[in-house]
């Protein structure tokens, strides 16, 4: 573990990625306290103000301070995307590993079904699920999770297949351990690394997907200061106040880049070949 961290920090991608994410984490935890204004209080006189000393990021169409909204919105945007990715990762890992272990016809059936689900574009799938459950942040998270699961299952399975051949699994079987013990306690810990790499990159996808769902009116709902929603609402005002769309847009981009860099850095750090 320490080795991995050392390699990570040494590489430029890992270092930058880690830095960005530490800043993001600070915003998530302390955002509400740093925010100088109430992110929801509207003001007739302060509409469409450009960034200035009083309002660092300017104000929006209702006179709300954008800096405060970005700070508070970090929580909604990042935590929700992380949640979706985490849930899909866990579900995918369990199903994928189980499928790999069980092998044979069951494995075949599970994988074919996963392939079938993957053939529905994730945006469409998310759309159907949100339409069924109702428009809210949580349902969007659920929808993205379900859409991501088949991909995660695939990766988990292929890694598990490799792990399955390993000696320690045969030893466990010889010992007479229960199936679920083998899957959860022997195989799972060893396949975690590649899945984590994939997951960090998926978080960036999740943020994008969330923002796109908001653009279509299916993600976070107003007046939540979720970044994707802020960008999609601000599109209409681009000519009056371009900062309204650009600032949260850059925020999304930076966090997405951070996760991508971290993922690449982790991949290099965990890959023995590149040392």
């Amino acid at each position, binding site marked *: 573990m320490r080795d991995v961290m050392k390699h990570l920090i040494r590489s430029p991608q890992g270092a930058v990625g880690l830095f960005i994410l530490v800043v993001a984490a600070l915003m998530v935890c302390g955002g509400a306290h740093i925010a100088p204004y109430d992110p929801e209080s509207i003001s007739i006189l302060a509409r469409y103000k450009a960034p200035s000393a009083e309002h660092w990021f300017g104000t929006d169409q209702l006179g709300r301070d954008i800096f405060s909204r970005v700070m508070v919105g970090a929580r909604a945007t990042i935590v929700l995307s992380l949640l979706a990715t985490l849930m899909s990762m866990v579900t995918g890992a369990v199903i994928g590993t189980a499928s790999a272990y069980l092998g044979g016809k069951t494995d075949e059936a599970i994988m074919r079904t996963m392939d079938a689900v993957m053939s*529905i574009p994730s945006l469409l799938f998310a759309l159907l699920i949100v339409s069924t459950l109702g428009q809210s942040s949580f349902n969007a998270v659920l929808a993205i999770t379900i859409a991501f699961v088949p991909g995660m299952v695939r990766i988990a399975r292929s890694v598990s297949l490799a792990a399955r051949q390993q000696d320690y699994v045969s030893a466990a079987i010889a010992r007479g351990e229960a199936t679920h013990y083998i899957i959860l306690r022997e195989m799972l810990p060893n396949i975690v690394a590649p899945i984590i790499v994939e997951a960090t990159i998926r978080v960036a996808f999740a943020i994008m997907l969330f*923002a*796109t769902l908001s653009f279509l009116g299916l993600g976070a709902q107003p007046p939540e200061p979720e970044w994707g929603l802020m*960008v999609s609402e601000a*599109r209409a005002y681009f000519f009056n106040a371009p900062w309204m769309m650009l600032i949260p847009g850059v925020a999304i*981009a930076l966090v997405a880049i951070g996760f991508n860099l971290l993922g690449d850095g982790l991949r290099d750090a965990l890959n023995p070949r590149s040392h």
Partner: protein
Amino acid sequence: MTASYLFKRFMLVIYTLLVVSLLVFGITQLLPADAAVTLLGQNATPQALAAVRARLGLNDPAWLQYWHWLRGVLHGDFGVSMRNGLPVAPTIMAALGRSLLLAVCALLLMLVVAIPLGIWAAVRRGKLADMLVSVLSYVGISFPEFVTATLLLLLFADVWQILPATGYVPLTEDFRGGISHLILPSVTVAMILVAHVSRMVRSEMVDVLQTDYIRAAHLKGLSRRRILWRHALRNGLLPTITIVALDVGYLLGGIVVVEEIFAIPGIGRELIVAVQARDLPTIQAGVLILAATYSIVNFLADLAYVFLDKRISYA
């Protein structure tokens, strides 16, 4: 490539389509508000709603509705849209055609840009060029499509006025004009693909260039260019085929945003409107055709992969 393998793959496609149709049908049964409500909107009296529901067959139990639909499909009849009474199949196929056109343009653009970029970065590994490509690709995948689409639209159609603001003019009407209309939407979509694929090409090429096989070729005195083109490239490109095939799913249903902004009546847009209107036949047909296209493309990609792989092994 045995006949039994082909048959098995074909059955797999059928199985996929069946699962997809059941899944989507199941979900649509759970949707709140039905087609009758969205059709009649604010004029819905209970009797009118009942009349429309009876006419659309919405009162039948779910399995019966599915069975009717399935039987129709096996006869080539995809039903009639609940929104406007027009037959579903022609509308969906026309919409699919437009999305495919956009997808093909984006793919071509991507191939022309991403592969050379990836190779260039791999060859100049660790140097400035590599870092530049890296940075550009990170930026490319970090903005949501509707942001890039808006910025491109405003720059090229509004401020500079060198490209049209709409994405779709039938090529049959006006070929050159039609192509110019497709430029902005294709570039928007291609940006993400380029970022994706160039990184993949780069990392695969880096791996390939370090193999003993390539080193041996070097030692044998083969020219650098020859090594690149004849040996490294083929090996490096194989995974690209898989990635591209997987991206087709994104390209077809996922570019709704681009379709909406550039007013291209493609299949993504068509499906979103159908879901909002609870138009079951259109939703079913649309998703099915998307899944079928995706399966077929992946099947072809698998074939291509095996074909190329064999040739390489024997080279």
